[in-house]
């Protein structure tokens, strides 16, 4: 009887030990699984940030390159064109004095060509680098852009911003919005064959809300994305937005046309002073 009493105890203890092990096993699996999941999440986060950084760098270098080209155009070709214009002026005086009617006509034609070229170069430089944006901010720059487009085309483009005056945003954010507006409006002109475009910009403390609406043929964003129709434009918008955590939605309203709806969270203005106009001279690699 004594023996069986001991046996009972031994059994009880063994069972308890086994149970303890089972219990530890279950807790361990739960704990370990949770930790691995968190780790995985962190790695994903890091990867995402890294990708964003890469994109950012790519876009930055694109902007830098634009500036370099603009600067070269302005400094080299622009200067040479000015000199050419000067020489032509002198020549024209000589032709006026000694030449005949025909020479004079050719002279005048060359002069106007050079003048036009100078204008074109200036326009291209300004398109490449939105100087207005840097100096006077988003409202001015978009206003100017719209104004220029309206001049050339038979188009009604309206631009509304509310509030009418808002503080300058970070330089990168302004450039992002500007380029997106540029692309959306250009798309509407290129593809939609529309007669009016409405641009609406709303800014509050947390969100920047941009709507670009046209009354053209409209398009199905899903189909465009599926097929390989999506050009660089729409993709570019998305990658620019990815950097600033923004989102874009395209809609196709019933009554025709298309609508682009962009939302970007407002970021605290960190480096409010605009980058110097010659960033390529002190190139910075921020990786």
């Amino acid at each position, binding site marked *: 009887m004594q023996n*069986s009493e001991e046996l009972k105890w031994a*059994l009880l203890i063994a069972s308890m030990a086994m*149970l303890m092990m*089972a219990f530890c*096993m279950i807790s361990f699996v739960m704990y370990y699984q949770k930790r691995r999941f968190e780790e995985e999440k962190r790695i994903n986060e890091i990867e995402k940030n890294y990708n964003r950084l890469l994109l950012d760098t790519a876009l930055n270098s694109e902007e830098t390159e634009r500036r370099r080209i603009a600067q070269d155009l302005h400094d080299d070709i622009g200067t040479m064109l000015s000199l050419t214009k000067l020489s032509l002026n002198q020549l024209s005086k000589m032709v006026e004095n000694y030449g005949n009617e025909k020479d004079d006509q050719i002279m005048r034609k060359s002069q106007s060509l050079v003048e036009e070229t100078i204008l074109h170069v200036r326009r291209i430089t300004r398109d490449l680098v939105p100087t207005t944006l840097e100096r006077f901010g988003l409202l001015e720059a978009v206003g100017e852009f719209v104004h220029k487009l309206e001049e050339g085309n038979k188009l009604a483009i309206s631009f509304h911003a509310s509030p009418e005056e808002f503080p300058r945003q970070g330089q990168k954010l302004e450039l992002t919005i500007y380029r997106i507006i540029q692309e959306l409006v250009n798309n509407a002109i290129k593809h939609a064959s529309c007669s009016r475009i409405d641009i609406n910009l709303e800014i509050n403390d947390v969100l920047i809300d941009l709507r670009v609406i046209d009354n053209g043929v409209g398009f199905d964003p899903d189909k465009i994305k599926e097929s390989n129709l999506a050009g660089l434009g729409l993709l570019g918008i998305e990658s620019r937005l990815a950097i600033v955590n923004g989102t874009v939605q395209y809609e196709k309203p019933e009554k025709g046309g298309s609508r682009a709806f962009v939302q970007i969270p407002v970021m605290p203005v960190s480096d409010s002073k605009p980058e110097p106009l010659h960033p390529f001279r002190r190139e910075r690699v921020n990786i």
Partner: protein
Amino acid sequence: MFETYFAYSLRKPIPCFSTFITLLPIVLIITRKAYLDPTFKLLLFYSLSKLITDLLIFDSAVRQQNSIVYFNISIPVFYSLLAGMFYFKFSSSIYKKGILYSIGGFLVFAIWDISNSNLEITDFQNHRAVLFAKTVEGVLIIVLILMYFYEIINSLVIPDLLTFPFFWVCSGLLLYYSSFIFIAPILHYAASWKNIQDLGIARTVPYIFEIICALFFSVGVYHFSADDYAKQ
């Protein structure tokens, strides 16, 4: 008749409760349509066969007959059903094949063990519990559960284990079989001592964990959602 059952239940409340608590997961599996998933269909069959076995044992205990024969027969049946659940849970075909072989092998082994423990197989009154089979069943099930846990950790597809039905099922089984694994071989001798040998609290612990196991099943089935299963 009913009074004798009732009196017996009062004398042994925990084993009785462990018998009837099995109804809870059964009802839940049916009401939550968990049987759409093959794993839970097998769990339903397991619970049903367990309920039937327990009821038969309960009945023979009341009639003071030897109930061990039901216990012995249930061993290969339970193992086939439980291992079948893991058959559907593992993705690797090697594991699947292994599980099928283990079911076949265990069936043969259990039959051998039953006949080995009982010289006179038709003598139901003096029927004795198997010596190895229940322990081997426990070891095999625990191994399967641990293998499944390993796969869970490795594959990282389940975001929250606490809402994952099969994790509860595994945990319940792991606790139950862990509590039973040392008792099982003793039963062979305990029964041969003509039931004089009462294992006392050591025998009650597995009953308690049987109840816990059924509760775990219920929690797991409660988290089961037929919509999720359809989406898989």
